[in-house]
């Protein structure tokens, strides 16, 4: 994990430094004087050779000092501290909503295989995983924001503001999880132990809940990690779209403005969460299914 994070930081730093242009030439109408640019470069340490900048930066990171945003002239840790709770809240809401929709939908469509319910949920799953989130957001805004005027279009703060970003962010994950739940239920229903349970005369509910559901949830639990990682990635498109002041939007604007300290810190943060999400899958898998031993 530490070596992976190290390389992620190296690649991001390298790419950000290889980029032509500097954060100080973003206003073509009012170019800054060279003396001013030199002073800024010295202030942010941008006048040193790249490898020295990197070593210095990583040294600071180890002391939890992520530098100062070039664009906003605020400490990066402050920016992250103000944006992170919002992004985390949005992500958690979306994950809970996705699970609340996907699990029942997947289970019901597997139990009613090849009925209208099943086809309906398969269609939902296909559309939800296929249509990009920002395109879905456009349709939602058109119908619920402009047409029915149910929810405000952009912004954050009140519960009404949270509805559309949460629903759209949850949609892709819900579709993905519903698909996996259905497939894994169908797989479990066909197993011999289910036939045994039925043949010894257990009631259908007991068979479904005690034997099918319990085993079908194992593969589902393992994809919650990747689904959460997908939510993390999805969050910066949705935050940008709906002007949600989280770190996702901060990330996109900092990339567009070549604001290195913010890019570095947020990339590392995202990479950290994705690695944790994937690692936790391995651990959860080992706990749920004793047949699987965590390798390595």
């Amino acid at each position, binding site marked *: 994990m530490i070596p*992976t*994070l190290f*390389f*992620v930081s190296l*690649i*991001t730093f390298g*790419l*950000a430094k*290889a*980029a*032509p*242009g500097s954060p100080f030439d973003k206003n073509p109408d009012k170019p800054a004087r060279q003396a001013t640019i030199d002073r800024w470069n010295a202030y942010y340490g941008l006048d040193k050779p790249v490898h020295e900048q990197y070593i210095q930066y990583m040294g600071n990171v180890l002391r939890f000092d992520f530098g100062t945003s070039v664009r906003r002239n605020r400490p990066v840790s402050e920016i992250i501290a103000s944006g992170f709770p919002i992004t985390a809240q949005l992500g958690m809401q979306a994950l809970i909503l996705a699970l609340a929709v996907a699990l029942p939908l997947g289970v019901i469509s597997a139990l009613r295989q090849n009925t209208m319910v099943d086809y309906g949920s398969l269609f939902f799953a*296909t*559309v939800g*995983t*296929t*249509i*990009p989130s*920002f*395109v879905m957001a*456009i*349709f939602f*805004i*058109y119908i619920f924001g*402009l047409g029915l005027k149910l929810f405000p*279009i952009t912004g954050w703060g009140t519960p009404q503001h949270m509805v559309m970003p949460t629903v759209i962010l949850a949609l892709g994950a819900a579709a993905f999880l519903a*698909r*996996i739940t*259905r*497939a894994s239920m169908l797989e479990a229903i066909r197993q011999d132990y289910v036939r045994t349970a039925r043949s010894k005369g257990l009631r259908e509910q007991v068979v479904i809940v005690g034997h099918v559901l319990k085993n079908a949830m194992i593969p589902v639990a393992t994809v919650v990690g990747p689904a959460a*990682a997908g939510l*993390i*990635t999805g969050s*910066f*498109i949705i935050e*940008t779209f709906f002007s949600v002041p989280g770190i996702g939007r901060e*990330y*996109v604007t900092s*990339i*567009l403005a*070549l604001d290195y300290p913010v*890019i570095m810190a947020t*990339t590392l943060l*995202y*990479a950290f969460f*994705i*690695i944790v999400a*994937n690692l936790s899958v391995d651990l959860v898998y080992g706990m749920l299914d004793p047949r699987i031993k965590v390798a390595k």
Partner: protein
Amino acid sequence: MATASTTQERAAELNVLSRKQRSLWGDALYRLMRNKAAVGGLIVIASAFLVAIFAPVLAPYDPIAIPLNPSTQMEPLWTGSKYTDPRYLLGTDFLGRDIISRLIFASRISMVVGFIPTFIVFGLGVSIGMSAGFFGGWLDQLLMRFTDIIYAFPDFLFLLIIVASFRASGFGKVLDGLMLIFVAIAIVGWVGVARLTRGQVLALKEREFVEAARSVGATSGRIMAKHLLPNALAPLIVTAAFAVPSAILGEATLSFLGVGIIPPTPSWGQMINEGFPLFSSNPWAVLMPAICISVVMLAFTFVGDGLRDALDPRMKT
């Protein structure tokens, strides 16, 4: 195998031989063609290709040039508002350019950006993954370490960083920014394909037919090309079928964020980006490209699902 003893059995055997032979691929094609959603998807994709190829013939107006006296942006005819113009069926954008013409020309970007990076990704990914899986050793080690790192980067984050970093360079302006998008998608995408190929090769290379080929003196290159590749092809084709729409999505998202195709060249994502500030006054300038993206993405997904079911019915979810 026991020889058939009775006349009837011999006749039955002859009958089997005289039946029209179908190869594995023929079978798959047959199954694909029976899948209505997949056929529908193929038709949509074929039409999108034709539209892209014949864009200059089909488009009624210039997609880029701004009209000499642009009036306010027009709404589609069916809205019946006073801001309509019979010459522009779907209305005009904020600069007075015909939306149909821009949609038609934008299909070119999506088609090209869907297929060309996919070819690069597969060329690179398959050859590297196959050598890593077949020869093992340091190449394999390097590949596995590298994929660990790339997997920690969310795909789109990586794509965004690459494109944003090199957008202002000379290379970033080649072909209105298309070249940079090709390369960026290829850099992000090849690792997954390499990993998949490697896994396939690792499983296949211990099988008897590979041993048999080696025992009659086949070279490594021949074993890879003639024995491993055809057997590893089915999951690779399915992955490729899904790689195309994800590349289209990548370009659309980048252009939507304003770092993709350089204006004034139209792309669907960029039309959304340009129209969005005026979404509440003229929603159709945004809805139209959004619908185009949705239809094309769904078509590719249906074909991908169909291919997966056709090539390996056991993989069906």
